[in-house]
């Protein structure tokens, strides 16, 4: 495990059941590779993520957290984007307070077919985290 960590950063992805999960599944189907230390926790909507979970993840040793947001595709309504943005802002503040580099939390809208964009996000995030944390 330790050896693997050298090669890739541990990233926790919060993804949503109806929108970004299909994209992440499709990335697998298409065999688009990304670091295997990317773990996904699936939730109904990205605006339901509690900042405390994110902080807990850093505390437990995750290098980065990525929110695969529903964006405008959210099945629960258009307010999702705004609310997710709000909670990310709140988390950033909490991270600063706790001395965690805010860049370790990223968010992007991943629609149900955004497999390639997801994989690209994971790769760049991983590179960034490796450079800044494991240099």
């Amino acid at each position, binding site marked *: *495990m330790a050896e*693997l960590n050298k090669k*890739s950063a*541990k990233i*926790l992805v919060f993804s949503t059941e*109806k*929108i970004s*999960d*299909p994209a*992440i*599944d*499709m*990335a*697998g*189907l298409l*065999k*688009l*590779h*990304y*670091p*295997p*230390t990317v*773990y*996904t*926790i*699936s*939730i*109904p*909507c990205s*605006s*339901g*993520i*509690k*900042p*405390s*979970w994110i902080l*807990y*993840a850093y505390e*437990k*040793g*995750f290098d980065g957290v990525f929110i695969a947001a529903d964006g405008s*595709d*959210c*099945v*629960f*309504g258009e*307010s*999702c984007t705004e*609310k997710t943005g709000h*909670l990310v802002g*709140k988390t950033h503040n909490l991270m600063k307070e706790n001395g965690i580099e805010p860049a370790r939390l990223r968010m992007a809208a991943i*629609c*149900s*077919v955004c497999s390639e964009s997801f994989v690209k996000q994971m790769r760049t995030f991983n590179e960034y985290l490796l450079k800044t944390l494991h240099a």
Partner: protein
Amino acid sequence: MKKKKIGVYICHCGGNISDYVDVEKVRQSVEGEDIVFIAKTTMFACSDTNQRDMVDDIKANNLDGVIVASCSPKLHQLTFRNVSIRADLNKYTYVHANIREQASWAHSDNKMGATEKAIHLVKAAIAKARYADALETNKIKAKKAVAVIGAGVAGMKAAISLAEKNTEVILIEKEPFVGGRVAQWDSLSTTTETGKNMVKRLYSELTKHDNITILTNSEVIENKGSVGNISLKVKRTPRFIKASACHPDDLKRAIEVCPVEVPDEFNFRLSNRKAIYKNYPSEYPQIPVIDVKNCTRCGECEKVCKAVDFTEKEEILDVEVGSVLMATGFDSYTPEYGEFGYATSDNVITLPQFKRMIDTQFDKLTYNGKQIKNIAYIYCVGSRQTDGENTYCSRNCCTSTIHAAVTAKQKFADINNYHFNRGLRTYGKQEILYADSLRSGDIYLQSYEDGLPTVITEGKKTIVKINDILTNGREIEVEADLVVLVTGMVPRADNTIGSLFKIPKGRDKFYNEVHMKLRPVETVIDGITIAGACQGPKNIAESVNSALSAATKSYSILSKGELETDPLVATIDPEKCTWCGACEAACPFDAILKVEKDGKTIAEINNTVCKGCGMCAPVCDPDAVNLIACSSKEIMSMIDALV
């Protein structure tokens, strides 16, 4: 609390998983977990045998829950929840781990990494299973009515089929007339019936059923609720013509006197129509319409026809249905300026235009006043693009073109057809049409993938050149009187309705089904089915097949009059809640009520309204709100397991 006993099943998926993930290692790594009572690997977790084994295991060992680590939960979560039910377990005690799409396949380049990840994913599932309690599903009444959107052949067939199944149907068509694309054609492939006649036949069947409401000139403008109880608002633009007072001759005169002329979209802009119009005499509904966007209100028509009534008002109708069936069809690709001479050469038209031409002309085929003899068809315009964004094959155009070419040849004298194709795709029985066309002397020229034909305009002449694969790559040219661009099917440019219902799109930008084979007419939005060419290119029979399938699906969702919904709703911890109203403000469904309990003002969740999105949870400062199955303790223990 008594310690849980759970069973873990790790699927080989016949190599899909086990080729990259060491499933035995996964099994060994999790069998020591305290609540794991059984840990097994299996070739196919979804097979009948394994399902039976699971039931036996659960019953024999009094398991409290099971975990299957296999493919995406989209495919088989339901299968295994049903296994739990058969073993007398509550289905919500089942937890799924996706180690195929998110481990073996995604990391097929790194077997060790994939195995490690699979172990963590299964451990996270175990962590979740620890808290997965038995839950009762909510039952809601479902409205036994379906809104069918789009009245082309797919929509009409779906409506008829649903009505036959004693289901109320609201058929909503944006255009003033029904029939969609098929109404535009006379000659149809594989039948002697004309498109117009087919539409007429379907329309008369529609009107036989009293449980079908046809709303033409109507658009859905609002969508609320969810499967079982969907509330739509439909905007209905008036025809400005009273059906009752309408005398056909007067109406005919009204059309004649109208001074407004606009390009006729029904005729693909080959000709003009009036602002008061009907596309063809036997069109349904039989009443003409006044196109308000272009009408100048000059009043000429009113003078000659009593039926014209400008006082009619736009209506907003409330429609309550249980399910929505989308049959919104396709657009024909519009070539770009200059693409194969489109819009830059006088003799270049598209296939739909050509089809209208051969349907509407007799004896002699002419275009721009010139008689047509040599016709060049350029295939795959807007399909199978290597540079453009339409990489897919449009499926139906080869057959459609050959059919049009053969029809033109039979109908008009001295026609020579030249087909500049990229490999004919007259699949199945349509091959016969291709063979017939060859025998009648049609000439087929095939281009290389990287050397498409070119259209050159020399004065009034239009020449099509190709390096023909079939003649050893020789450059061959044809002087064509008419160049027909075989334009493919593309998704509707106007996707207002798609965004309104949030229907996901596939790589080809058409509406996407959940699974091509398992759930081919369902979308990820519960209760919304898709039919016909809005899902991807299809011919008539294929559209009808999918329409009938979608109708069956919509019907079977609603036929019991009752639906079960997930009990995965939000919960309020009354101890922590101090009623600040933040959750109420965050809830998009008005599911949060302010109540007095034990002398304390707190929030309460209305379970039948709550959709379980969780938007209320992060906004709660005292952290009193949690989502069932996604509560902080579950998420955090999963995080523990994933590290």
